[in-house]
């Protein structure tokens, strides 16, 4: 993939994440902060399908943006063909791993498998 395409994705995920994370944080403030973190309320959030979809989107957007940011920083710190390949594939693997782990929580909770 061309670097310009990667960076367009980087900017796009950032802008989309800002909007969705704002909604996510506002949801914590609709009731008291501590109350919003109570088990029943969190479970209700996960079981509400539109909210679960939003959480999944935030997970994907931030994982892509965050691990690409990490890739950029690591590529600038050290150079070399093997190192650069390891960084790129390592960050991609970490991104997929985190999305898979987070999706497991969202899907299982949403489906009532808790």
């Amino acid at each position: 993939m061309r670097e310009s395409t990667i960076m367009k994705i980087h900017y796009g995920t950032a802008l989309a994440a800002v909007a969705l994370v704002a909604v996510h944080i506002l949801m914590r403030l609709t009731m008291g902060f501590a109350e919003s973190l109570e088990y029943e309320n969190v479970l209700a959030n996960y079981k509400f399908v539109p909210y679960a979809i939003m959480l999944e989107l935030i997970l994907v957007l931030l994982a892509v943006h965050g691990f690409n940011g990490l890739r950029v920083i690591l590529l600038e710190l050290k150079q070399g063909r093997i190192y650069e390949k390891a960084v790129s594939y390592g960050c991609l693997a970490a991104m997929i791993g985190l999305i898979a782990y987070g999706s497991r929580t969202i899907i299982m909770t949403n489906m009532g498998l808790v």
Partner: protein
Amino acid sequence: MTHDEHKEGIGGMANPTRYGIERVAYWLMRLSGLGLLAYFVAHIYETSNILRGQVGWNEFLELTQTTEGHIFLALVIAMCVFHTVNGVRVMLGHGGVGVGKPARPDYPYDPASQNYRHKIGIYSAILLAAIATMYGLAVMFGE
């Protein structure tokens, strides 16, 4: 510093003291980005405790809902707001927005790209981060 390439190294890259507020913003952007990524990974792990049922969730909540936990979360709010506001500024700059117009340079050659618009953007990011942090602390400790 290695003498073969004589690169300034991480110390030089991370030193925010020599080249004005723009270099400070660059440094804060990196730090906040890394901090937010670390928090994001920890948050995904933290929320996965819901799969352990009510007891597991409450056990984990007890660990995080402490004074130290609240202060850490306030720091996350600061990083998040700074990274967002400064990120929008940088993105606009990357597109060539607000970086001035090319012109014949005159002594003392003040760079047009380092203009007040971007400086205001950086100071706004710091100020908004501070305000959001104080609000966050008020919400978390006010209960």
